[in-house]
């Protein structure tokens, strides 16, 4: 009796084991059969690295002004933003980063192509601001692996680790060094990056800097963008174009974020003044003074004052011109 019960228990266990093996096999087969299908259907994916959240393609430029973005892109695709285009020669993962001085695409895996220049894992393509040519440089794979919170695929991580070892040897002998991009910053030390981020790292400013490599073109671009922002009642763009220096006595005070709140409030007050109607047919005219423009509409003339600061040109005043005062600003 006991033997029979034991036999039945053994038989049940055996059948269960067989079932389990069959299930594992079928799961694996299913997974294997799905792999090519997944690879074939993989689509462009963007994730902001600070919050590890997906980014819609339409918000790429806006988000890039706030955070780096990890791009996972199939072979043969093209991604365009900030007037640059990146193509992929293989399925590629790359990191995008935008600062006022340089736009960077750092390749983690695969291979990308820009204007005939290619970059593989461990390399980056840099677009310096202004009229500078693109550069293929390397990025410090060791520092990236140590600091990044991205979840990298094991093969990508292993490849970057090998790149990091080779770079360490080159760095030891001085054959590889940190790449510098010249700039003139108003701060000499301290947490300048966060201070500058508040007035330079936004899509409107980055777009204008990248689209207008020469100061004269940038002046016109800023004037046009400001009038357009007034006309469309875009409080955000108005805010980003107003000079931060209007809200502080000394550039060093820009380290304190309070000025940004004051500028935001000021931009809102401008926006609710309904400039859309008086500026509906406005045109821009340059003046003898490089720092000002005449905004002429059918009902009124205005003078727009601009001032350069930290590689950008900002709006410092916008005021109506009285009839008969010879064009003098109020």
């Amino acid at each position, binding site marked *: 009796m006991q033997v029979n019960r034991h036999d039945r228990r053994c038989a049940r266990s055996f059948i269960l084991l067989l079932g389990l093996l069959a299930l594992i096999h079928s799961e694996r087969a299913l997974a294997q059969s799905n792999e090519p299908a997944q690879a074939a259907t993989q689509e462009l994916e963007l994730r902001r690295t600070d919050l590890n959240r997906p980014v819609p393609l339409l918000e790429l430029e806006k988000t890039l002004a706030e955070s*780096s973005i990890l791009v996972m892109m199939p072979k043969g695709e093209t991604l365009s933003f900030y007037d640059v285009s990146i193509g992929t020669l293989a399925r590629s993962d790359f990191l995008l980063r935008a600062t006022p001085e340089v736009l960077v695409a750092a390749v983690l895996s695969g291979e990308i192509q820009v204007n005939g220049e290619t970059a593989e894992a461990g390399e980056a393509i840099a677009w310096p601001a202004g009229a500078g040519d693109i550069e293929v440089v390397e990025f410090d794979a060791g520092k990236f692996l140590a600091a990044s919170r991205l979840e990298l695929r094991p093969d990508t991580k292993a490849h970057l680790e090998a790149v990091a070892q080779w770079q360490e040897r080159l760095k030891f002998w001085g054959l590889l060094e940190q790449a510098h991009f010249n700039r003139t910053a108003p701060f000499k030390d301290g947490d300048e990056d966060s201070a500058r981020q508040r007035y330079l790292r936004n899509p409107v400013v980055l777009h204008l800097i990248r689209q207008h490599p020469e100061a004269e073109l940038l002046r016109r671009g800023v004037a046009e963008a400001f009038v357009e922002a007034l006309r469309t009642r875009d409080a955000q763009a108005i805010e980003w174009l107003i000079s931060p220096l209007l809200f502080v006595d000394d550039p060093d005070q820009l380290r304190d974020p309070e000025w940004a709140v004051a500028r935001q409030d000021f931009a809102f007050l401008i926006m609710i003044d309904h400039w859309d109607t008086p500026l509906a047919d406005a045109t821009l005219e340059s003046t003898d003074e490089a720092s000002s423009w005449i905004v002429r509409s059918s009902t009124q003339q205005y003078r727009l004052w601009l001032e350069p600061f930290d590689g950008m040109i900002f709006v410092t005043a916008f005021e109506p011109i009285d009839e008969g005062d010879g064009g003098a600003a109020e």
Partner: protein
Amino acid sequence: MRHWIVSLIVALMGLGFSSESYGQELKTQTIEQRAQHLQEAPALAIPHEEFIPAGEDGLVLLRRPKLFAIESNSSYQFTDNAFLSDKQKTHDHVLSQSVLVRAGTRIAQRVEVFASGSGFISRYRLNPGLDFNGVTGSAGASMPLDRWVLSLRYDGSAIYDRNFNAHLVTLHTLEFNVSATVGVSRTAVLYPFFSVLRVWANPDDFSNTALAAGGTLMHSFTPTLAAFLQGHVESKFYDDFFEPSTLEARHDYGARLSATLNWVPLEWMTVNVTAAIARNESTISTLRYTNALVFPSLQLFFRF
């Protein structure tokens, strides 16, 4: 043989011999210092303020540095004391040109090493007998230690007369230097230094051991325009400066003050205008002098 001739002339100089031959031989006596003065045309460049794009994602860009450089240095110098002796003070206009090839790298991101070779010519407008040409080879290393920078360098110079007919002097200089960077204000930096130098020379009359100390105050007006105020004192102990003739050991001590305006209009070009005054005291009376200089210079760089 030349040693004996020079010794004889120095002895005659001590006896107040004719000023013409006196000047003729001062050119030999002071060649070491004249060459040094001309090579002191400042090789200053304003440190560029640079931005290293690193951020929250740890993305630091790297680039293959340019390890080699070719440098041209052209200078005009007005000196009020061409012979470097108060006993025959005469002014002159000196044109100098040097071409330098340099290779350097930084090992372990800490130790700078370099080697260079250069050729130079100097032409005196009013006293062409003072003209000289030369070649120099240098090698050295420097490393930071806390807030100090320690450096050791070797310079070998062979100096000839105008047509390379006569070898005037060969100098092998080993220098140990300690310097620091002290922030004075947001736009001013002070670089104090202390040096010990040992010079082996041929003829060996010029062999000496020297101590020097001083500093440079840099004030930056704009990212491409700066002023430098430099001052240093130096004491030189000569081994055997024509001692059988002069009957006394040579010991020089002097001071030099200079002001330089430094402009970097292009990444590969530096323009300097320097005014300097130097005073040298010596146990040998003919080698005491005060020298005022004004010299603009143009440096061109090509890095690869």
